């Protein structure tokens, strides 16, 4: 009886304390409860990461050949490497490491216009893994189950930009047991493995910080979007690109003055987002886009039009409370959906977005700040510890098939 009495007292105390913590800053809201506090977790001390020393042909030389890789939306792989090299979670003793990181810049083979070609990436990864497994014993110990790779390309480790091709290839066979840190996320999709960590695409933090306008500028645009609706080069008739959703947005709302949508490239893109209440984030050729990051950073409520998408850090950020999800089939009713959201819900979403921790969790600042995307990735990795027993293979046991996959992938790199 006494224990339960004290227990009740502690619970009551904790409850009242959490309420006061909730009320403390009326302008921004902390997402209290198990999901929200996780954003502020500190991974230092919870895990140890060992960074393999790969020859520079896998990372530095590639970057030297094309420095554009540092600023495109796949640059997370490079900055993750740099962050880990100087982070307190790094350990130089592989025996005590929980996770192993392979610094390979697989997405840095760019065309003249800046788009990454994924054709060499499978071969590159295969050669890197061969190197790791022959020089260190840790890969063979678990066949990669305690290794993680950053694969920020369109469809993650499927290494193709076309969805049908990517589905056909599936995830690279050698990576079937490793943890993948990728931007692509769609439920029940071949290219999203169970246990992957979804991250936001890279958005240059300096450019974003430089374009802030005073917060008292009234938000006068109702819905804002800039981008393609029809990809005339690759899908002139429409219907393939974005599964027809972007085209539907255009056809239904091009005459609507509430919707500021067009294919222009204005110089005031970031400033306009800060003057808008809702920002559309529809899918393109892949469901993810940097618009989500930009919307969160600029305080514009993201309207996500992508069926079954898995958003970044979905286990830490309650996206349902921050953004609005619209099914692709409901796009013709988008204006009704948005105007029927009660105003107090809209104000609450704006307050949640105004939380600086939320904005920071979407960015990759250099140097790293506590609570940013690097730390969220480490938090995600830490949450998967300790590794279960079946991760460690018995000696002689082999699970991965080293010769699976298209013949072209087996060529040495």
């Amino acid at each position: 009886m006494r224990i339960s009495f004290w227990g009740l007292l502690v619970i009551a105390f904790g409850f009242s304390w959490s309420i006061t913590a909730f009320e403390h800053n009326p302008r921004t809201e902390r997402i209290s409860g198990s999901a929200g506090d996780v954003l502020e977790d500190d991974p230092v001390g919870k895990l140890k990461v060992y960074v393999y020393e790969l020859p520079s042909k896998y990372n530095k030389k590639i970057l030297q050949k094309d420095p554009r890789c540092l600023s495109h939306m796949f640059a997370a792989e490079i900055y993750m490497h740099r962050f880990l090299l100087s982070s307190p979670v790094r350990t130089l003793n592989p025996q005590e490491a929980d996770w192993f990181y392979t610094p390979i810049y697989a997405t840095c083979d760019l065309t003249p216009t800046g788009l990454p070609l994924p054709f060499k990436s499978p071969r590159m990864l295969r050669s890197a893994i061969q190197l790791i497994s022959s020089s260190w014993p840790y890969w063979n110990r678990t066949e990669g189950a305690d290794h993680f790779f950053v694969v920020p390309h369109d469809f993650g480790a499927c290494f193709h930009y076309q969805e049908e091709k990517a589905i056909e290839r599936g995830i690279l066979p050698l990576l079937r047991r490793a943890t993948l840190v990728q931007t692509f996320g769609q439920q029940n999709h071949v290219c999203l493995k169970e246990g992957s960590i979804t991250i936001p695409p890279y958005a240059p933090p300096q450019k974003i910080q430089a374009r802030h306008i005073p917060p008292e500028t009234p938000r006068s645009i109702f819905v804002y979007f800039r981008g393609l609706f029809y990809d005339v080069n690759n899908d002139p008739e429409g219907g393939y690109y974005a599964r027809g959703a972007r085209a539907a947005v255009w056809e239904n709302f091009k005459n609507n003055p509430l919707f500021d949508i067009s294919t222009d490239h204005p110089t005031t893109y970031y400033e306009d987002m800060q003057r808008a209440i809702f920002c559309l984030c529809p899918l393109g050729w892949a469901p993810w886009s940097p618009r989500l990051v930009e919307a969160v950073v600029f305080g514009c409520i993201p309207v996500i039009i992508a069926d079954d998408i898995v958003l970044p850090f979905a286990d830490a950020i309650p996206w349902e409370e921050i953004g609005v999800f619209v099914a692709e089939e409901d796009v013709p009713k988008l204006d009704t959906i948005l105007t029927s959201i009660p105003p107090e819900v809209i104000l609450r979403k704006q307050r949640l977005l105004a939380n600086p921790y939320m904005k920071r969790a979407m960015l990759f600042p250099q140097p790293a700040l506590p609570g940013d995307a690097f730390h969220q990735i480490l938090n995600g990795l830490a949450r998967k510890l300790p590794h279960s027993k079946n991760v460690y293979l018995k000696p002689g046991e082999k699970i991965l098939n080293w010769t699976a996959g298209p013949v072209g992938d087996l060529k040495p790199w």
Partner: protein
Amino acid sequence: MKLSALRQSYINRRSYFRSSVPLDSSSDSAFNSPTAIFGLILHGLCCLISLFLGYRFSRLVFFFLFSTNFYTSPFRSTADLVRTLDVHSVLSTNPHLPLVNKTLPNSRVVVGRHGIRIRPWPHPDPVETMKAHRIIEIVQKEQRSQFGEKDPRTVIVVTPTYVRTFQALHLTGVMHSLMLVPHDLVWIVVEAGGVSNETASLIAKSGLKTIHVGFNQRMPNSWDERYNLESKMRLRALRIIRQKKLDGIVMFADDSNMHSMELFDEIQNVKWFGAVSVGILANSINADEMVDHKEEQENPRMPVQGPACNASNMLAGWHVFNASPYAGKSAVHIDDRGTVLPRKLDWSGFVLNSRLLWKDRGERPKWIKDIDMLEGDIESPLDLVNDPSMVEPLGSCGRRVLLWWLRVEARTDSKFPPRWVIDSPLEITVPSRHTPWPDAPPEPHANEEPIEKHSTKRTSGSKRRSKRKQNYNSAGQIDV
């Protein structure tokens, strides 16, 4: 991200076609070759037909033949599809036959061509638009409460006016500016010549809280006397504020001035007595002569009246209007063609806390005079203060011009229909002298003459006015 050329996508489409032909689960690979050849021939035939007809109806055929394995889409029925056969890329087509489902079993999302969903009336719905505007208003109000003024005080606006041709023009401008002010507002309109229906009906359209007071003198015809009378009218308004104990910030909005919205946000910062910079738009036709002067190579700058600060942002003096370039050319009477000049320091550049006017001495600082103690009239509100250095300069120390002064009036004998409404129908029609088209019969045309006719039907008020105007013109003096 997608680099493949059309050829690549075409190859893909052909591969879909091939994979989708043997949809029956019972067909073995043994049967593939005749089926495949047949499929190929059929496809070629369909291509040729669509080449001539201009749309891809091969898909339609397969839709009909293989519709069992189909994910139905609820928005278009087969009947509709049959009718709407011309393929605009805009028109929706049914989702193409799916691949042998490579996505995992529970996925609803299918790779492939999807229809573009368009609702029957893709135009804005006015109800939705109103709701959206209400949401925008709520969001902006919230923004203002977070980042703007915490406790906005009521703004008390004092406007002297009188009925004349341009009254509707000027007063509507001021009225709309005041309607946009997000704070509480009280509008005190003092009218020379007594309360009239014209002014009352104009003001009633604003929806603001107004106090409409009449002043017993009629507005004189010369600018100097007009300024004097306006000062008296403003003092009258200040006495009303004192009597009603209105609480807020008093500002003077003359009916021909132009105010920016930032002005109303800036005056919330005043503590007791503040001054803002006023831009003077004193141009007139004669000003062009001065521009051609050889010494003035650059554009003549707009003169600004207001507080002047020294380097440490303390009030150091006043910028006043320099009347010397206009000496001898300024307008004396209201309908003169010369430049209308302002006084040295205009009333509209000053704002004061209404508590300065209240009877009880309580919080009032010592450097303000009591209005009841004033003998005679005051020319500018600076006469109300004993110590002019206590005036607070607003608008980043007078550097921002927040309102503009202008005086434009029509000739005093100009006629205008009361309330600018021609409400009785024009009864006199006079054929015009030229018809635009030689063949058309002469159209009965309403031109300027009816106004003169209408003038005989004017209401009694305007008749009185016209008589008054005639009295001015003949005597050039006030005729009470």
